[in-house]
Structure formats: C-alpha cells, structure tokens
C-alpha cells in the first residue's frame, strides 16, 4: 500500500495501476468470489419473492433512518433500563477517548475484539496499543490481517486476497508453527491461540449489525462464534456502532437477518445471530458486568442531511456490492484507501471524509449498476456515484474542463464552423505522433495505455453526402427504365 501522506487520489491511481496488472492477486480474488455468486443465487431463489422482501427491508430502514432521533432515544431508554450504558460520540476522538478512559478506570490489561469496521474507522487498535493494552482481533480474517499489519481487504471477507501458502508463511513467521497447505489446519492454529485470548481478556470490544429500538438490544451477526465468546466471557463489554444501524423492532430482524445472510455470503442464515440486551441480568449464569454501547456519528449526520443520498445510510454492510463490482475485482480492496471499500464505500466516503479529497472514487465506476441490482435494501448506489460527481463539480467547478465543453458546444451549434474545423482533424492526426505520450500530449491520460485513433481523411458528412447522391442517381435511373 502507498504511504498515507500521499493525496488519496494519487494513492488510488498508483495502487490501481499496480493492482490492475497484478494477475496473481486478481486470480486469488476471483477464485475467492467464484462460489459466492452460485451460493447467493441458489439461496436467493428459495425466497418466494425477493423483490418484495427487498422493498420491505428498504422500508424498515427508511422508517428507522428518517426517525433516527426517536429510535435512538428509545434504544437508549430501554438499554439503560437494563443496566447498559450508552455513550454518544460525535467523532473518532471522542469514541477512542471514552474507551481508553474506561479501560484505564477499570484496570484493564488485555482486550479481545470481534470484528468491528467502526473500530477500523476510528483507528482504535493503534490507540489501544499505544496506551499499552494487549489487543487481539478474534475473527479469523481480521486476526490474519492484524498479524500481517494490514487493513482488511473487504469489510466482510477481510483476507480474501491471500492464498493459503501466504497465510501459512505468515503463521510460521509470527507464531512459529509448521507449514501447511490445509485451510483446516491453519484455522485450528488460530483457534488454539485465540482461545487463550478470550479467557484472559478483561475487556471485549465488538461492533454491531443492528440496534433494536423497541427491546433495547444490539444484534451481532457472525459465523465463527468469536463474537459470542467476546461478548460472553470478559467482564466488561463495549459495542461500537454507527448511529444508522438502528431498526424499530425486534421482529424486523426476522426479515433482515435472512436477507443479510443471503446477500452477504449466500447462506440462509449466518452461523450466529445474537441479540444482547445489556449486561448479565440478576439470576443469570454469566455475561459481562458492564455493557457499554458507543453510538458513533463521525459525519453520518452529514450524509443524513442530504435527502437525495440519505438512503446510503440504509446499508446493512452485507458486502454484496463489492462482490459483484467489476472495479473491485480488478483494483482490489486496499486501493480504495478507505475503511469501507467498493461501491458503497465510494458513495459514503466523500460524505464522511470530504468530497474534494475522495471524489475520484465516484469516477472509478463503470456505472454498470450491478451494485444497485444486488443490494438487499435497494440503495441507488450507482446513481449516487453520479450525484457525487455532479456535487463535486458544482462545489468546485473545473474552469479548464468547462471551457473545453463550452468551446465544444459553440462548435456543435455552428455546422459551417464545425465543417471547417473538422478539416483540420487529419492534420492533427499527422502531427500528434510527434508529441504522443510526452508531457505536451493533451490526451496523455488516454495514450498512456491505449492507441489514439487517427482521424479519417473523409468526414462522415462528406461520405454521407456522396452516398445520398449515389442513391438519388440510382433511383432516377430506375425511374427512367420504367
């Protein structure tokens, strides 16, 4: 990955150029996704009516997001009544500080984490490590990425880009284990190491897939059981969740959980779907003594304030739009340089981190619409990419580009002038090779990787005219013969 100091746009361009020609990596990604589409289609086909289910899911999220204040307050009331604690964080720093202060106040030494993209978003791990806490990621993919010192590649499949031999080498280097090319053995190595992490940790940190307002619960979806252990064993738990994750009622999950599983991995239901309503209750066997929920804004309200793109907050982070995206498959997850990769990341990152710095992501799209088609909550993803492009130009017009378009429009409205100007095209074609692929070349972005087509000697107009004349002559001949 390129350095952070680089402007996001330059980093994107450099990494995209490199990864697009990295056939080994692309093959690994393609192979990892090859079963996904089959599984998803198979499970999707068992639905009596996927489209209606999608509309209903979209309606649930629309209701929740458009009454966010009401449902968040309801959640807070219910969750607090059961002994939970709710903390509202406007930004990353407030969220980090709350967790750091809590850990310090309780004398925490080691922390076990289950998958939380919000943790990546606020750079929680570096802050905890800097403060001297031991932090272990427990989701297998996240654990591998942590050992590798790399950000997740995909927000659902964190290490999908790695081959088993690379993982085996990594384990050998970091854990001193013997080489193996068996995924099961590799998984068992991680299982052994991580078992200790759950038992020894004083604090567990997780994300959350849904916040349930009417019962005051946090719902977590996972396959491995690591979140169950993270929320079950340590005596303090912190769930770090974006404010948009709320749904009105527990019963809504009867629809959303199967849809998340189907779109995300092609399963009927993910391995563990667990709803937590606070810390251990009186009379219960186990569970944390304290359960904190950190509700994270971090510019989500900025996206909320844009009614045109507000539905991007309906996202349930299933990852389906990444899995079907031709751009993702070619440039890979790290190239985006964002916490949330792929089409949805390109939509929301400019809102979270600045339109001008991140507008290039919205340009990196074929606008094929595969993302919109696959989204289980019907987000208008590819149109939002267009809207970001429009907004970026409105906010900061590009004078040279608009001058070019103005000249073009001027020309197009004057046929005589156009005809005259097009005579020069073959001349341009002849001279262009002299400066092709040099700094002087005005179309270098194109010629760097492709040949520039040469202008034909006869324009379309003159060919058309000649053709019409021929046709007229033919008709009059026929008429004469009659």
């Amino acid at each position, binding site marked *: 990955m390129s350095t952070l100091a680089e402007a996001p746009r330059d980093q994107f361009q450099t990494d995209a150029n490199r990864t697009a020609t990295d056939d080994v990596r692309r093959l690994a990604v393609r192979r990892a*996704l090859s079963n*996904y589409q089959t599984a998803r289609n198979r499970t999707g086909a068992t639905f009596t009516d996927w489209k209606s289910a999608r509309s209903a899911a*979209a309606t649930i999220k629309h*209701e929740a997001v458009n009454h966010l204040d009401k449902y968040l307050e309801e959640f807070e009331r219910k969750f607090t009544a059961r002994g939970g604690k709710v903390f509202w964080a406007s930004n990353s720093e407030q969220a980090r500080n709350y967790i750091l202060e809590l850990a310090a106040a309780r004398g925490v030494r080691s922390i076990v984490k289950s998958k939380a993209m919000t943790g990546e978003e606020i750079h929680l791990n570096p802050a905890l490590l800097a403060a001297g806490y031991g932090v272990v990621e427990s989701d297998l993919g996240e654990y*591998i990425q942590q050992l590798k010192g790399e950000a997740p590649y995909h927000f659902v499949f964190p290490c999908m880009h790695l081959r*088993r031999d690379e993982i085996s080498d990594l384990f050998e280097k970091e854990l001193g284990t013997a080489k193996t090319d068996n995924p099961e053995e590799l998984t068992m190595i991680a299982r052994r190491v991580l078992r200790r992490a759950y038992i020894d940790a004083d604090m567990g940190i997780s994300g959350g897939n849904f916040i349930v307002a009417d019962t005051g619960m946090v719902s977590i979806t996972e396959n*491995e059981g690591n979140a169950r252990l993270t929320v079950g064993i340590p005596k303090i738990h912190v769930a770090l969740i974006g404010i948009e994750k709320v749904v009105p009622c527990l019963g809504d999950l009867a629809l959303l959980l199967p849809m998340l599983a189907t779109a995300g991995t092609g399963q009927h239901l993910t391995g*563990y779907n667990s709803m937590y309503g606070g810390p251990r209750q009186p009379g219960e066997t*186990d569970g944390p003594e304290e359960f904190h929920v950190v509700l994270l804004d971090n510019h989500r309200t900025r996206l909320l304030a844009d009614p045109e793109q507000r539905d991007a907050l309906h996202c349930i982070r299933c990852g389906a739009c990444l899995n079907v995206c031709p751009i993702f498959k070619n440039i890979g997850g790290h190239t985006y340089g964002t916490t949330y990769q792929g089409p949805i990341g390109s939509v929301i990152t400019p809102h979270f981190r600045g339109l001008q710095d991140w507008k290039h992501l919205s340009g990196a799209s074929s606008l094929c619409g595969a993302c919109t088609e696959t989204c289980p909550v*019907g987000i208008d993803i590819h149109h939002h990419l267009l809207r970001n492009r429009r907004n970026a130009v409105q906010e900061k017009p590009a004078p040279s580009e608009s001058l070019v378009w103005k000249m073009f429009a001027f020309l197009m409205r004057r046929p005589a002038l156009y005809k005259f100007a097009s005579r020069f095209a073959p001349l341009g074609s002849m001279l262009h090779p002299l400066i092709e692929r040099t700094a002087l070349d005005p179309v270098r972005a194109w010629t760097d990787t492709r040949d520039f087509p040469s202008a034909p000697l006869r324009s379309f107009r003159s060919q058309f005219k000649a053709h019409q004349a021929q046709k007229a002559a033919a008709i009059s001949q026929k008429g004469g013969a009659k």
Partner: protein
Amino acid sequence: MNSQNGDREAILGRVREALRVPAPLKHPAERSAGGEPTTAHFREWLPPVGPSLDEKFALFAKLSETLRSELIVCADLAQAAAEISSLSSAESWKTIALHRGGLLDKLAPLLPSGLAQLCVDGGYDKNALEACDAGITECELLVAQTGSVCVTSDNSGGRVLSVLPPHHIVIARQTQLVTDLTEAYESLAAKYRANYPSMISFITGPSRTGDIERILVLGAHGPKRLTILLLP
C-alpha cells in the same frame, strides 16, 4: 462534551436538523396503520415452510444436513442418554458441562457414571469450562425455515456454555419446532414480555469460517460439532 453520556444533545440536534427535509421512499412496501412496517407479510416473501409439523420437521432435517448439524430423533430420554454415551466413548470424553433445567435434570442421572459433569449454574471457572469435551444445553426453539437452534441466557445455561466447548449437544422436544424467525420472535415476546434474557442467539450449524480462500472449515472458534437430540 458531557462525560456522562457524551455528545448526546449535539448529535440528536444534528439528526433533527438533518431530518427537516424528508427523503423519498423509493421502495414502498406494506405498512400497518401505525406507520410501522408490518412483520405479518414477511412470511409471504421469505423461503416457504409447509404448515404441518411433518413439513416443518422435513425442512429442519434437510437444512440440518446442509449445515452439517447432526440431528438425531430420540424416542425418549433413555435413548438420548444412550446417544450421548456413544458420542462420549467415540470421542473419549472426560468431562461434560451442562446446566439445570426441566429436561436436563432428568437426563443428567442417566448419563454414564464415568463421565464427570460440570454444572454452570451459579458460576463456573472459565478454564474448567474451556477444558470440557462437550456442552449440553436445552434450547428455546428450533426454527424450521433456517435450521436454527435458538438459545437464550435464560434457559440454555447462560451465554458461554453453548459456544465454548468443542461439541455442543442440544436437547429439545418436537413441540419446540417453530416455522420461521417471525414465529420465533413472537413466541419469545409472549414468553418473556418486556423482560427478555440478556442474550438471545440463533445458532445455525456448527461454528464455521470461510476466511481462508472462502473454503468452509468447521469449528473456527465455537463448536466443531452440533448435535441436536430431538425428543417427541
């Protein structure tokens, strides 16, 4: 920032300000009179389940197979105990963990005498639980549509018993089989009213991961095996 609950007022203020302009509903769906989306229709769109007990059972059995859960229909508690006993000798168990409950209280005395029992009620040593060869729990419900077992902290021995030992054995009655998640949530609501257990978990198959090249491996962190003993 208020250290008690943080930036609560500021965030709610920004939310309310942002919501002053409504956003269009692009995918309208059925809603009840109260404006809330209705859950009643979910059943019409999700994968179908037959109404009879036989159909529910057939689907649950089929999904269990796909999920690699082991479903064993038992005539009575004695047969369930015998099944556990044969699993125990096949895997050479030394200790099993369990909890108190209507079914388990009757089952526990029938288990092999050489097999030590760790009862988690009233607290347990987590290292001792981790060392157990299997955990036996009751469950709230079984869900036909998804092949899931629903456990709660209230009736399944807390939060950890069903996920820490490498083999999870569930003992359930056929009457606990419900159609789908909607029915499961309705039935939990009817049982607990507002006083839900602090954990409700739908377990769908043994613990699994596909993180390495998307190849399925069972027993990532939780149980490698899930055995469901179904009594009449």
